[in-house]
């Protein structure tokens, strides 16, 4: 048989232990209830969560944020599409310019070559004619120069005696003066 004090001690120990267990369970329950993602059944009605005012505001804000995000993404996508269009258009324009330049270059080259082939003989004939004309002029000048020089040279001996006579007369006069 246990004494009365022993009984009282065991009763207190049991009371404290049960109090601790109860406290522990209560604390755990409280923590579990406040854990995010855990649905508080007290706030549910017909299986749906009943949002309070704050939660409603938060949901609206989140919804608004989502809508803004979606709109922003749409704008970004639209701008990207416009840029894509611009890139495509610019590429097409640059390609066209390159194609036109290349075609003009090739066409001009072909035209010049064709023109030269068609007019080469004509141009060569004109150049040859100019050279022949130059040779003719050279022959005329050569003949005139040589013939006139010989003509003058042939006439100088006829004029020399008179010149020499004049010089002789001058020298004779000088001698007479002396």
């Amino acid at each position, binding site marked *: 048989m246990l004494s009365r004090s022993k009984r009282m001690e065991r009763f207190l120990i049991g009371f404290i232990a049960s109090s601790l267990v109860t406290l522990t369970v209560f604390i755990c329950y409280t923590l579990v209830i406040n854990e995010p993602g855990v649905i508080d059944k007290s706030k549910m009605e017909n299986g749906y969560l009943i949002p309070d005012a704050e939660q409603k505001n938060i949901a609206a804000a989140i919804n608004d944020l989502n809508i803004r995000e979606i709109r922003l993404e749409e704008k970004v996508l639209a701008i990207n599409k416009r840029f894509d269009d611009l890139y495509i258009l610019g590429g097409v324009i640059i390609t066209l310019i390159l194609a036109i330049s290349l075609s003009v270059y090739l066409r001009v080259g072909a035209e010049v070559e064709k023109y030269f082939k068609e007019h080469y003989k004509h141009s060569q004939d004109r150049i040859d004619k100019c050279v022949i*004309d130059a*040779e*003719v002029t050279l*022959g*005329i*000048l050569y*003949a*005139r120069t040589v*013939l006139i020089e*010989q003509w003058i040279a042939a006439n100088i001996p006829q004029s020399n005696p008179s010149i020499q006579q004049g010089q002789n007369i001058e020298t004779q006069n000088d001698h007479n003066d002396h």
Partner: protein
Amino acid sequence: MTTMITENPQLSKIELSLLKSKVEANSATAKDLENLDYFLGWLSSSGFLLQNFKEKGINSYEEFIVQRNKPSDKKNPLVEGYLYGIILGAISTLEQYLNTKQV
């Protein structure tokens, strides 16, 4: 002109003009060139034309006429043009000589 040389070695301006026309029309004969060369003896020693012909590899007046009448692809147009110029130059010098003599 042959008779002119043998019988009467005179050259008038009209005959010289006619000779020039014949040379320009490529209808001058070797005898015409020979006569021209003879009259060039008035200005210098005779044989001026033939001397220049020989310098270009043409040994006679007849050869020059033959060369001149050849097709253009079978002759040297530069030599022919040069000698043609010498003939024209000689004629113009003779014309000048005759003008001087008349004055």
